[in-house]
């Protein structure tokens, strides 16, 4: 302890440098995680936050909501199936809308606002109750639309009456509206009164029923559909896997850099103070005490770097809140910081092995004081 902290104090510069290097890597890691989180939740939020237990797709859509269209008879068939408590159509389509004079892309979600088509939880305001009302949810990448604001889509004015967090589809500003309004918007765009079919069906199962079993049973019994429980539907969304995988590669690279930087630093440090360590061993310091002092330094330096990195990232995300609405997830952050500290300790194995290999006898070999 004593020696570990005294050394840090005497060589504050180099220890600070390592701490800052670790902090920088932590900033990158946490920032990537925030971006990845915002990206994936912008893609998956809509399904992930849905009040539906089971989602029903057209089997030919291969679980891509954008390709799925449910024929009208299926709605009745699903609602009459065992263990199904409620069904709502979910119409999904991207429109050009205007708000405050600006043109924006709007993801419309049409459904039964009292049924399993809307987010399970709303953040503010209320659900739409009739025509001309919408519930808004944005992704972290666009400007939020507030309650009371109006969004016009294909000649229909939607007043935002409530907001939900992390319930966007396709990384777009998302407006949950009634299925009737969704139909009107689609027909207005087509210019003729086409038949508008929902993309998906949301299903709530009866109390006590297992959503996975109900989904399995629906898939078996109704021709032309594929039903999945919600978590499975989220995982099957196109793009999510690719994003997660790309970012995982970045994380692994960062972890490797942290390990190399820490490992090499402490190895060099140990080699440089070899004489001092030999002396300490020769005058009666146990090898455990010497190893402990190396590990304490790793903990202090990497720990300080991790804390600095976390604080700076939190601050940066707070500052850029308007541009990029992401924040740190406390579980992910804690796990990442813990992983980096553990990795630092593991990486110092080279230094520790060197310390353990010291023969105190070397202290008697010549050289000048």
């Amino acid at each position: 302890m004593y020696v570990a902290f005294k050394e840090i104090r005497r060589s504050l510069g180099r220890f600070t440098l390592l701490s800052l290097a670790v902090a920088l890597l932590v900033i990158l890691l946490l920032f990537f995680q925030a971006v990845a989180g915002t990206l994936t939740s912008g893609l998956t939020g809509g399904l992930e936050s849905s009040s539906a237990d089971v989602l029903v797709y057209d089997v030919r859509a291969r679980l891509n909501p954008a390709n799925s269209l449910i024929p009208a008879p299926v709605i009745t068939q699903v609602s009459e199936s065992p263990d199904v408590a409620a069904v709502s159509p979910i119409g999904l389509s991207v429109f050009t809308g205007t708000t405050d004079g600006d043109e924006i892309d709007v993801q419309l979600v049409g459904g039964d606002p009292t049924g399993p088509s809307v987010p399970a939880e709303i953040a503010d305001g209320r659900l739409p109750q009739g025509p001309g009302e919408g519930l808004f949810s944005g992704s972290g990448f666009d400007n939020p639309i507030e309650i009371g604001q109006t969004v016009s889509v294909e000649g229909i004015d939607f007043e935002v009456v409530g907001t939900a967090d992390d319930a966007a589809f396709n990384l777009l500003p998302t407006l949950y509206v009634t299925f009737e309004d969704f139909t009107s918007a689609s027909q207005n765009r087509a210019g003729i009164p086409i038949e508008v079919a929902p993309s998906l069906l949301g299903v709530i199962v009866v109390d006590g029923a297992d959503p996975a079993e109900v989904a399995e049973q629906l898939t078996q019994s109704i021709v032309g559909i594929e039903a999945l429980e919600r978590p499975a539907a989220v995982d099957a969304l196109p793009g999510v896997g690719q994003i997660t995988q790309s970012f995982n590669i970045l994380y692994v690279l960062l972890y490797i850099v942290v390990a190399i930087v820490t490992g090499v630093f402490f190895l060099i440090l140990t080699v440089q103070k070899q004489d001092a360590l030999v002396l300490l061993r020769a005058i009666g310091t146990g090898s455990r005490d010497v190893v402990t002092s190396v590990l304490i330094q790793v903990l202090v330096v990497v720990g300080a770097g991790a804390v600095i990195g976390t604080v700076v990232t939190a601050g940066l995300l707070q500052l850029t809140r308007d541009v990029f609405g992401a924040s740190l997830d406390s579980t992910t952050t804690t796990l990442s910081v813990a992983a980096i500290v553990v990795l630092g300790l593991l990486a110092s194995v080279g230094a520790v092995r060197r310390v353990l290999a010291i023969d105190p006898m070397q202290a008697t070999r010549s050289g000048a004081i």
Partner: protein
Amino acid sequence: MPALEMSQVRKVYGADDQQVVALNDVDLTVDDDEMLILVGPSGSGKTTLLTVAGALLRPTSGSVKVGGVEITDLDDKEAARFRRDQVGFVFQSVNLVPFLTARENLLVVRQFGGSKIDGAAKKRADQLLDELGLGGRGDNLPSQLSGGQKQRVAIGRALMNEPPLVLVDEPTSALDSELGKQVMDLLRSEIKGRGVAAIIVTHDDRVLGYGDRQVQMVDGVLSSAAPATATTT
């Protein structure tokens, strides 16, 4: 009880035809308040003898007792504790931790092995530094001290834990004659003043007059009580 009893101690380095017999069945007894001067040419085995007496090195055969306790069969951990509590070393080469001040170099011995640096330890360190003429130098790093001052700090470090046996290897080899004399005066007064046992290894003629007794080593063999004037390297 003698401070150190070595009997039939043999140390052989290397194997087969590369063998070097550094200690050749050495018998040596040092009384508990005796200051012994060990002289001999370079390569004669002096440092090896100190190393074996201080539990840094196990002899090939023979018995080494310090304070009546056999130390040749200590394991690494016990040997480290023994060195910390029973022996004060002044090495020929590196003696100070470069990133610790003079005072901290004295205190560091106290810290390991679960002990604490308490007020008494600090007082003792300051007192030792004072005695060694380093009163104002406690906060200096080794790089800010001269060779003679560093050697004195090393002596203080060796005495810090009040060991019954002090082992000093070539204390004057890196110092000019004036400084060498100062350091030897100090060593003598510190060691005799405490009534502890010490072995001072040297091949420096100027040191010869300082001990209670003098033995000579040649090629790993001790010859007792060579006359002070006749011994050179």
